[in-house]
């Protein structure tokens, strides 16, 4: 198996056979661990088969690290058990909440970045890393709402989490683009200011204009090819920070594996430019 990960792809059941058969230098695959929290069966068997050939990343969506409570103990145990079984190359989660008082809301929900939230989230990341016995990467979320009450800007908040917990970061460039568009800040400035040394992984994905509000509100739908503006931000980032494992993230409106693979080749070209390698 390749040890240096370059560009990877979201793994969906439709892609199992193609993924298991695919041979490409640096190729890796990412799944949502929640879809593999089962006692047995073909899903786990496929994941293990693909793991024999490729690096695998477990990208969680449900630890609810920003909820004002500790991570659910049984959920964390299931995650640890899956990690034990799959031996993932990377593990990540979001700066967001989703489970609250026993109900699971399948989304990545926002919160005011206060001092109290920082304490809680740092504690939750540490608990998670202790349970998993490894460093995880925390992803910047997509924003839709203008919210008051932040004590911290997002980059400082993430940097402080890194300092306090030793976690890494996952920079989702599409999320930056979507959030900058929706809230009115400079995506390039954000990408330029992101702490390079903490970045363990990069996400690229497609977005869609809101059906009612149009381009004033972009929605992080993961159902379309990566937009040209996002590619441009990505190239800008890679020139500055160098090569990082980069995911073409696709969760809906799934194309043929070969189509997704051409997007991967785009990322590969960026990652393998001399400037990227020298950075």
């Amino acid at each position, binding site marked *: 198996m390749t040890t240096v990960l370059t560009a990877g792809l979201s793994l969906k059941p439709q892609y199992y056979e193609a993924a298991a058969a695919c041979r490409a230098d640096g190729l890796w695959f990412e799944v949502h661990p929640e879809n593999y929290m089962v006692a*047995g069966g073909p899903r786990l068997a496929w994941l293990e088969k693909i793991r024999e050939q490729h690096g695998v990343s477990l990208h969680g969506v449900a630890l609810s690290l920003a909820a004002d409570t500790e991570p659910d103990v049984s959920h964390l145990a299931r995650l640890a058990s899956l990690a034990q079984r799959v031996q993932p190359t990377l593990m990540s989660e979001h700066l967001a909440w989703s489970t609250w008082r026993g109900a699971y809301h399948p989304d990545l929900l926002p919160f005011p970045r206060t001092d109290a939230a920082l304490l809680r989230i740092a504690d939750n990341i540490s608990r998670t890393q202790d349970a998993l016995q490894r460093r995880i990467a925390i992803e910047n979320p997509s924003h839709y709402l203008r919210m008051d009450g932040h004590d911290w800007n997002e980059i400082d908040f993430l940097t402080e989490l890194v300092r306090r917990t030793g976690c890494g970061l996952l920079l989702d460039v599409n999320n930056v683009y979507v959030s900058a568009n929706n809230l009115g800040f400079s995506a390039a400035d954000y990408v330029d200011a992101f702490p390079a040394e903490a970045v363990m992984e990069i996400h690229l994905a497609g977005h869609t204009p809101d059906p009612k509000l149009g381009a004033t509100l972009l929605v992080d739908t993961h159902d379309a090819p990566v937009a040209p503006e996002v590619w441009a931000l990505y190239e800008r980032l890679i020139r500055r920070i160098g090569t990082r494992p980069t995911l073409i993230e696709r969760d809906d409106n799934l194309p043929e594996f070969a189509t997704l693979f051409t997007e991967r080749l785009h990322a590969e070209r960026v990652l393998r430019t001399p400037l990227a390698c020298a950075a």
Partner: protein
Amino acid sequence: MSATTPVVAVNSDLARFQDAFARTLLDSSAPPDAHIANLVSQPAFAVYRNTVMKGCIDAVQANFPAVTRLVGEEWMRAAAADYVRTAPPTDPALLHYGASFADFLAHFEPAAEFPYLPGVARLDRCWIEAHTATDENAIDPAVLAALAPERLANAILRPHAAARWAWFPGAPIYNIWSGNRGDAAFDSQPVWKADGVLITRPRNVVTWIELDAAGYAFMDACAAGLTVADAADAALATHGEVDFARMMSALMTAGAFGAIRHTAA
């Protein structure tokens, strides 16, 4: 999901924010709490509402494909939306969502004209349970074939970890269900009689066979820990006439059992 109830700092600002936000996500009719009113009033708040609702409805639709095929996507998604409001997911592993969907349909007034739907939903659910059950090799039929009759009679057969079985005395639920899984061409006029099914996963693929009342009673008896002889008596009691050799052969070929234990008796 969790057996543990997390301790929440109920009086914190963040907890109050999350209480208010979560309440407003699924119930758009309730007036939002004052301190998040400036969020809920933004058109973008709908993105969260829509994403959460879509995620839940997608899961119900994905987990109940035969029900969806029977009622059509539009009806199904409307029913799922009602279900989500009464029983939002508690487990982030959404493959397990919908444990109470069959019961919901049984009391869902618009479903009254489809009395077979709750049973079909039960079987969709059984399929998921079989699909995700612990891996286990089914007993090789040759092992049983090699046993002396009295040794078999005193043995206890444990149903396979993936095995689920059901009996429907009032309607051909199994035939309706199996005709609406995958690409099967459904016979819209099934013979209206009782039927039953054994769904299991002897290896990597979920499979099923039709079960009669005797087969159903036999599986129940085995699951209760009865010996093969006692389970056969239980099957006879429901049916009167049982071709025991044929029933055993069908169950063994289907991979219905995961282990055999011999008793001294």
